[in-house]
């Protein structure tokens, strides 16, 4: 028997990645489902009432994961885009375009759940605060990426143009992240940080972290399913796609 060596670059070809993604996404989807159920249970039945915000704080269990994912997906997307520019690999551009719609949805959710939290706590749906404004710009960057992608017919050229846009936009992510430190914002500071003890009850923290991981798994599953769609569309004239259909 041959020695089993995993050839990672094998999966850089869309054909091989198509199969791999098809085998992987159900696992991520299942994990996302289970974790979301546990997370929701903690969110509503285990986590205690907040001393200041009553039950209204429970929005945190969707707001924080959505906001975090909106920023993190952007970084991953820009990473793929940059990799594609540097090494001219086809799959990289496809991964970047597979992530963009999900990132845009999370940025949208972050803004909507933030508005629903801001209204009862601050008395306003929206304020032109540094945190909120930079998150809005993130949504516009995602929408710009998608619009640019759609406006260029040749997918390879579209990938390159979008990669430049994605890389330039990366500057916005640390601005969002540090906005609550750099400026005097209405938005509260980080609830969780690596350098000091969290400023919340343990069960609240656990609920939030489990929801964060659930959103992660969901984002990976959805991106894998979408990249499979993109691969099929772009490789439609190749022999392997024709064989895969038969």
């Amino acid at each position, binding site marked *: 028997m041959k020695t089993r060596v995993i050839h990672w670059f094998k999966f850089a070809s869309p054909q091989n990645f198509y199969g791999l993604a098809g085998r992987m996404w159900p696992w991520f989807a299942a994990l996302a489902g289970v974790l979301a159920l546990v997370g929701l249970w903690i969110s509503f039945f285990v986590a205690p009432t907040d001393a200041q915000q009553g039950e209204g704080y429970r929005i945190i269990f969707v707001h924080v994961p959505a906001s975090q994912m909106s920023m993190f997906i952007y970084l991953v997307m820009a990473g793929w885009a940059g990799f594609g520019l540097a090494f001219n690999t086809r799959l990289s551009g496809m991964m970047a375009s597979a992530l963009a719609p999900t990132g845009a949805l999370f940025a949208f959710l972050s803004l909507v759940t933030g508005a629903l939290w801001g209204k009862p706590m601050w008395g306003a749906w929206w304020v032109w605060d540094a945190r909120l404004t930079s998150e809005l710009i993130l949504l516009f960057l995602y929408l710009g990426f998608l619009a640019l992608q759609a406006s260029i017919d040749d997918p390879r050229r579209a990938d390159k143009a979008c990669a430049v846009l994605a890389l330039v936009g990366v500057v916005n992510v640390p601005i969002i992240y540090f906005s609550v430190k750099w400026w005097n914002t209405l938005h509260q500071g980080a609830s969780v940080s690596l350098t000091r003890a969290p400023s919340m009850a343990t069960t609240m923290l656990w609920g939030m972290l489990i929801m964060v991981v659930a959103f992660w798994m969901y984002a990976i599953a*959805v991106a894998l399913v979408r990249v499979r*769609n993109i691969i099929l569309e772009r490789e439609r004239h190749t022999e392997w796609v024709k064989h895969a259909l038969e």
Partner: protein
Amino acid sequence: MHWNSVSEFFAMGGYALYVWGSFGVTAAVVVGEIVLLRSQRKAILRNLRNELLSEGASS
């Protein structure tokens, strides 16, 4: 468990609109994305099969 009744649970201490609104819109977006991806995949496969069939008929 700190809810005394079902109605108390749904009232969310007076924040029902905001809490259920947030979780509702999140659920709607997640379900919507899954449905969209699924129909997208079906449409792509249908188109590819049609293309393949018409190619087979002409050759």
